[in-house]
């Protein structure tokens, strides 16, 4: 088991004929993931890398291949529409990698997701990896842009708003011989489909996840909400790290959602919330794995 995706998950790539989407679809294929379809409007009938059929619409891809999960690599002006197409086609999961989607577009998408069966991860995220048991974790399910080889199959769940900080945590675990159940990047935008808390709940229910690393950053209050739930409900050890202690207030730190505004969303408040919830806080990003392993 794992959460969200397994090595058997049939994945569709929206924007597979673009350079970004194509490159990562190729890397996912090399990793051994089941990339079964691509969608690019106007390019239906083509094949990607001589093996993956390309369709004009998501609905066609679902009907022909039975795909349940999509990775969206569509440019920002068209990404919200691409997500909604996946929702309309009844996908279980849409993972949106695209960075730079207008906030109002995501506000509309989020509203449209109310009452739908589709879960959205992202946008502006590295995606999801459920490591496999082959060489360098190959044979797993890699959706998005994370480097596959840094992973190792195992029992630690990782959830983060940041891509490279996720890789940092994963690599620290792998270098210590500790594998991961699933690694989820939820994205750095202010409006996203899935929160820290949503993922923590899934890890808590997953028998194959024995410990959790939760990585947050300044802005919003999603980390505080997750911490409050963990305090009362989580059965598994959790280690945390919050980036942005030195970030000046009122400035967006790269991620659209990483901003301290009106004194809200500070690193100090989040770290305090973690501590109150009994989450082990890593003082520096170099210690994320060690801090978790100490309490495992």
């Amino acid at each position, binding site marked *: 088991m794992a959460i969200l995706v397994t090595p058997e998950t049939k994945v569709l790539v929206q924007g597979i004929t673009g350079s970004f989407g194509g490159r990562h679809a190729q*890397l996912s294929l090399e990793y051994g993931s089941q990339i079964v379809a691509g969608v690019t409007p106007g390019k239906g009938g083509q094949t990607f890398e001589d093996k993956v059929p390309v369709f004009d619409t998501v609905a066609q891809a679902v009907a022909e291949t039975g795909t349940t999960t999509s990775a969206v690599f569509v440019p*920002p*002006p068209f990404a919200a529409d691409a997500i909604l197409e996946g929702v309309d086609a009844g996908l279980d999961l849409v993972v949106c990698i695209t960075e*730079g989607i*207008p*906030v*109002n*577009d*995501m*506000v*509309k998408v*989020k*509203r*449209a997701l109310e009452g739908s069966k589709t879960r959205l991860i992202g946008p502006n995220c590295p995606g999801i990896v459920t490591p496999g048991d082959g060489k360098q974790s190959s044979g797993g399910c890699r959706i998005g*842009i*994370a*480097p596959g*080889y*840094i992973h190792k199959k195992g029992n630690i769940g990782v959830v*983060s*708003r*940041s*891509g*490279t*900080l*996720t*890789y*940092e945590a994963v*690599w620290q675990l792998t270098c210590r011989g500790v594998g991961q159940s699933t690694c989820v990047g939820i994205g*750095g935008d*202010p*409006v996203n489909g899935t929160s820290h808390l949503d993922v923590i709940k899934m890890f808590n229910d997953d028998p194959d996840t024995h410990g959790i690393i939760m*990585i947050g*950053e*300044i*802005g*919003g*209050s*999603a980390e505080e909400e997750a911490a409050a739930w963990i305090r009362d409900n989580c059965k598994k050890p959790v280690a945390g*790290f919050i*980036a*942005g*202690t*030195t*970030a*000046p207030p009122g*400035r967006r*730190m*790269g*991620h*659209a959602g*990483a901003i301290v505004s*009106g*004194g809200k969303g500070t*690193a100090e408040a989040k770290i305090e919330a973690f501590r109150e919830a009994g989450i082990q806080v890593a*003082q*520096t*990003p*170099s*210690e994320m794995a060690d801090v978790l392993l100490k309490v495992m």
Partner: protein
Amino acid sequence: MNIHEYQAKELLARNGVNVPSGKACKSIEEAQTAAQALFDAGQSMLVIKSQIHAGGRGKGTFKSGFQGGVHLCKSVEETVETAKAMLGEVLVTKQTGPEGREVKTLLVASAEKIVKELYLAVLLDRNTSKPIVMASTEGGVDIEEVAEKTPEKIVKETIDPAMGMMPYQARKIAAALNLPSSLTGQATKLLMGVYKTFWSCDASMVEINPLCIVENVDETQGIAAVDAKISLDDNALYRHKDILEMRDLAEEAPLEIEAGKFDLNYIKLHGNIACLVNGAGLAMATMDIIKHYGGDPANFLDVGGGASREQVTAAFKIILSDPNVKGILVNIFGGIMQCDVIAEGVVSAAKETNLSIPLVVRLEGNNVEIGKKILNESGLELISGDSMADAAKKIVAVV
């Protein structure tokens, strides 16, 4: 992106929001003409306001010693004299920092007879992922202070983005602000207009502080946006060419503008250890770890996932043009990128910029051994860091 008050009022007026009549002036002559036109139209008092992207203008001081970035004027002559003392001068407020900002534009507008000051804002509520209208009877003051001390004086109304603001919601807010019922119609129109501005312009925030009940010349009452501040969602600017033209580069840090040309995300801070990192989260964490080991970060710099040689070179040049910088920490997790490619980029950038200050490089990921070999054999005096902690300790030790 932020815009000036006069531009914000222009966007609001386009959406039916009542703003005091006025004109943006870039010269004394323009100010004179604008003042004359307003007095001719029957105004008895004007207000002349410095246009800079910072708050606290009224209580600010010009470097010339002239007090106040906002003034009331009773005549054309007084307007001209005041404009002369403000235009082209540097205004320092609590938000500009000691360097201040040059006032290049003045807003010359009718001075409203204010009966009561209120507060109004529309912004994104991250908890619900929906727009929220915030209003308060306590206007003209720092709203964060109101939220802290008397939160009950702030009313909030969540807007369903599928429908937009409904008139009943505007009426509800008007009632919560204790507006006289004779103003309900006007207030509803104004509130609907402010929300429409927020949504149609892809604003991240529209703030009207103060929103005022004003007394008209015929002694009837009206409601007007006496000040206005709008911040826009950078991601949506591509679909607002007209708003993009309102960008004032003089209000932005030159190094940040330069960084933007190379798709680098750079924010200048006040320390002396520069950092160059891939990924926003890792870049923030790198600043934090420098601080943790007793150093002081000079900047935030995210070179993105690609980190091409051109980008790394541009990043070095930007970092080095900050005279405070006494050392550089490069921290790259080469996930998809090959570390050897990044190492080559760092070496060529260091050589091209004739780097003469300490450089610590921490590489991790794909082809890391080849990358380290390239760095070691480059002939550059650089220090290799094994982990983030190791690299941070090393740069702090040598600066």
